[in-house]
């Protein structure tokens, strides 16, 4: 009687839920670990109990065989992710080697569901190759009612044992092998590396394990392909698997020193047209005009002095960068803008220049004499400091045009870094070098006159616009309170400029004092914000291994490396990333969108950037299952470029 009931219940079971199913050489069933009906995320698992001597395969089956296919039928509110592969075993069929599972195995699939959806039946068509010395494709139609299913302890254990952790590894490659150096997280006796990508490694040849010392080991795997750029897989230490994902530092000079120098030259030249630079530069040219077209020697000398100011500043910045880098800190280009003090100072410089242009201080010299009190016509220090100033105001705008060249420069030893920065400076000062060579060209410009005044005043506005943008960056870096302080300081600066321009003697000095006092008060108060900032930075949550984790989970992603002070980044967010169509595309295609905000200094992000050969933002990185490695999307995006890039 008992038996009859048992048979009946089994029958009912198989009729209603078709679970488990005998496929010929295995028994397949669908299980879950859902514990209550309010869970939004849980697992379902396909359990395959194979007959003795039969096996099925891992995602990389090795020399023969193949992975299973799973086709789900389910309600709309339920999302079932790709399988999370358990650690495989080696199944040698000499001379071949295959990777897979024997005996009783469970394949877990993560499930998400909309909380307002009802738990219902999910069904699965599971087709797989099951092999002993011969292979047979078998198939099972399985289903499980999530509303009544009991949580399976076995599934829970499988999930616990999934190889999700990454090992800290170092890679070295020879012509025919790749060696993975790792620190063993536990004592083990046997190790085997299962390569995930096909066609890179020789599966049949033995892998050599060596103990270097203590917990440090290395395993050497024979390769097939001559140039492996990246690979991933599972390193099995006895029963436990660990994820390994590596990009080999093949000397892939995506850019040679020569082309980096050419790019730097061009980038420098283009910089002259940036909104924050153009006014300063134009004023320099105007000052040449006002010198008259006749005194060629003087124009040449001024131009050369200006150029030396530019070059001096570029080399100074390069030296600082090299110095900071050599002391071990992770910084990249744009690092100047990651400090709110410097952004504050730049804001005031931009505003100051704008005010000077409007209020007509020392019209005859204009900005050429900033940084100098000497009013003589032969004052070359004025030209020199205009050069310095031009570079300083240009620094926020450098990223989009010079990102690649500077990124390359920063990854090079210093002897290569300096020439690139030098080339940048030369490109930047190209027009003036030309002028120094051919001073007579100045006469091609219109004669000096009232137009110069109007133009000069007009140039105040791009400068102020730049100041406005920097204020916004400053606000994001600090707080609304700090911004108000900066605005108060700006007001003080405006008053003092006005006083200097309007009054003589006494008031002039009052104005200057006012600015200085406000300035001291302001910059001594910033450090308080700075502390918060640093804490914020360390908590930014950027995880260097995020990409490898997502790839291990077969989750497509798009990472936006951005910063508030990066104009290109902001433009891209307006024109493409922020668009509804793009958002919809991301959702429809289950692409995880991640923002890595580098507005403030963040060593982890810097590290990730440098892995892509970049030292600055923007950088857009995309990956989806099936791609051997992630790809870099163009720095300047449109909707079309972005979506095409992800197809």
């Amino acid at each position, binding site marked *: 009687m008992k038996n009859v009931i048992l048979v009946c219940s089994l029958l009912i079971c198989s009729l209603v839920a078709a679970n488990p199913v005998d496929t010929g050489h295995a028994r397949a069933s669908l299980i879950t670990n859902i514990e209550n009906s309010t869970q939004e995320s849980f697992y379902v698992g396909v359990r395959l109990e194979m007959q003795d001597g039969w096996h099925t395969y891992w995602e990389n089956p090795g*020399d023969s065989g*193949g992975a299973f296919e799973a086709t789900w039928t389910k309600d709309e509110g339920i999302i079932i992710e790709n399988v999370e592969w358990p650690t495989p075993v080696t199944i040698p069929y000499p*001379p071949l080697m295959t990777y897979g599972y024997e005996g009783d195995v469970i394949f877990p699939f993560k499930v998400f569901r909309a909380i307002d959806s009802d738990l219902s039946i999910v069904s699965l068509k599971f087709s797989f190759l099951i092999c002993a010395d011969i292979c047979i494709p078998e198939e099972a139609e399985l289903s499980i009612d999530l509303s009544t299913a009991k949580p399976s302890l076995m599934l829970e254990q499988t999930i616990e044992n999934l190889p999700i952790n990454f090992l800290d590894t170092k890679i070295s490659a020879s012509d025919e092998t790749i060696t993975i150096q790792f620190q063993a997280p536990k004592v083990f006796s046997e190790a085997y590396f299962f390569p995930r990508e096909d066609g890179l490694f020789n599966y049949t040849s033995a892998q050599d394990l060596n103990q270097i010392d203590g917990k440090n080991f290395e395993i050497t795997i024979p390769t097939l392909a001559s140039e492996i750029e990246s690979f991933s897989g599972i390193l099995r230490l006895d029963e436990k698997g660990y994820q390994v994902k590596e990009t080999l530092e093949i000397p892939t000079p995506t850019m040679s020193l020569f082309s980096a120098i050419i790019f730097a030259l061009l980038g420098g030249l283009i910089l002259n047209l940036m909104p924050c630079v153009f006014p300063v530069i134009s004023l320099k040219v105007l000052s040449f005009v006002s010198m008259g077209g006749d005194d060629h020697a003087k124009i040449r000398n001024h131009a050369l002095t200006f150029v030396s100011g530019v070059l001096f500043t570029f080399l100074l910045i390069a030296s600082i960068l090299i110095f900071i880098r050599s002391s071990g800190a992770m910084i990249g280009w744009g690092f100047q803008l990651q400090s709110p003090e410097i952004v504050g100072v730049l804001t005031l410089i931009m505003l100051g220049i704008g005010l000077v242009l409007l209020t007509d201080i020392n019209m005859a010299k204009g900005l050429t004499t900033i940084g100098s009190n000497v009013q003589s016509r032969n004052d070359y220090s004025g030209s020199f400091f205009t050069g310095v100033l031009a570079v300083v105001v240009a620094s926020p705008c450098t990223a989009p045009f010079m990102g690649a060249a500077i990124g390359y420069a920063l990854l090079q030893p210093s002897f290569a870094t300096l020439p690139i920065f030098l080339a940048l400076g030369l490109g930047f000062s190209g027009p003036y070098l030309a002028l120094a060579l051919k001073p007579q060209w100045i006469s091609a410009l219109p004669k000096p006159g009232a137009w110069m005044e109007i133009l000069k005043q007009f140039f105040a506005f791009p400068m102020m616009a730049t100041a406005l943008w920097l204020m916004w960056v400053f606000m994001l870096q600090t707080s609304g309170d700090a911004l108000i302080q900066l605005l108060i300081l700006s007001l003080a600066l405006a008053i003092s400029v006005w006083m200097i321009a309007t009054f003589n003697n006494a008031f002039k000095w009052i104005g200057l004092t006012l600015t200085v006092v406000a300035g001291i008060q302001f910059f001594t108060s910033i450090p308080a914000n700075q502390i918060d900032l640093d804490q914020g930075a360390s908590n930014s949550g950027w995880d260097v291994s995020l990409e490898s984790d997502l790839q291990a989970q077969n989750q497509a992603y798009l990472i936006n490396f951005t910063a508030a002070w990066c104009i290109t980044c902001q433009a891209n967010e307006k024109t493409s990333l922020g668009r509804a169509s793009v958002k919809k595309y991301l959702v429809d295609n289950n692409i995880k969108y991640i923002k890595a905000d580098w507005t403030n200094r963040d060593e982890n992000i810097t590290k990730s950037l440098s892995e892509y050969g970049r030292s600055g933002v923007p950088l857009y990185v995309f990956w989806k299952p099936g791609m051997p490695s992630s790809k870099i999307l163009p720095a300047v995006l449109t909707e079309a470029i972005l979506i095409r890039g992800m197809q």
Partner: protein
Amino acid sequence: MKFFSVTALLLLSLDALSAEIKLNDPKLNEPAPNFAEQNSYGLNIQLSDFIGQPVILEWTNHECPYVARHYGENNMQAVQKAAQEKGFIWLSIISSTPGDQGHVLGDQANELTVSRNASPTHVLLDESGKIGMQYGAKTTPHMFMIDATGVLRYKGAIDDIGRGMKFFDASFNDSVNYISTQLDSVLMSSELKISNTVAYGCSVKYDY
């Protein structure tokens, strides 16, 4: 004592036998290794017999589900015909060990050729697995192309569908066949665009 030494010797020789199963990896764009084997009619066939003509080697095992689908849907036969129309010699090689899946005698091999409407120039019965190991044949099917000067030009899969259960759902029409699309390049004895791919299918049933 004697018994033990004999056993030890036996074990050693067994060990030596199994150690002999070693797959070579012939180099592309270099002369293909020569071989000699009986065909399904008992004639001795050598690769060097065909100097002056391009040759395709196809490792096969009629019981392997991958091979069965390639033949069942007339895909392999179509590739075979296309190649032969361009003057290729087609050698189907069976490296299954006696008693294992896919092993056939000459008559059975000829019956299979007729029943499947196939047209290989020869079916070679490589029972010992010698040719298979020489060429590093891992799967059925596993394809090799040799040009008229005897240089190996291609080794790998028959098409880009690849391994796994997806093979059984994929359409041959949507796939890129590495053999039929590269026949002309082999005729011109030039290096192929795609010369080395990962073969997929069942394992070759060597004697292990």
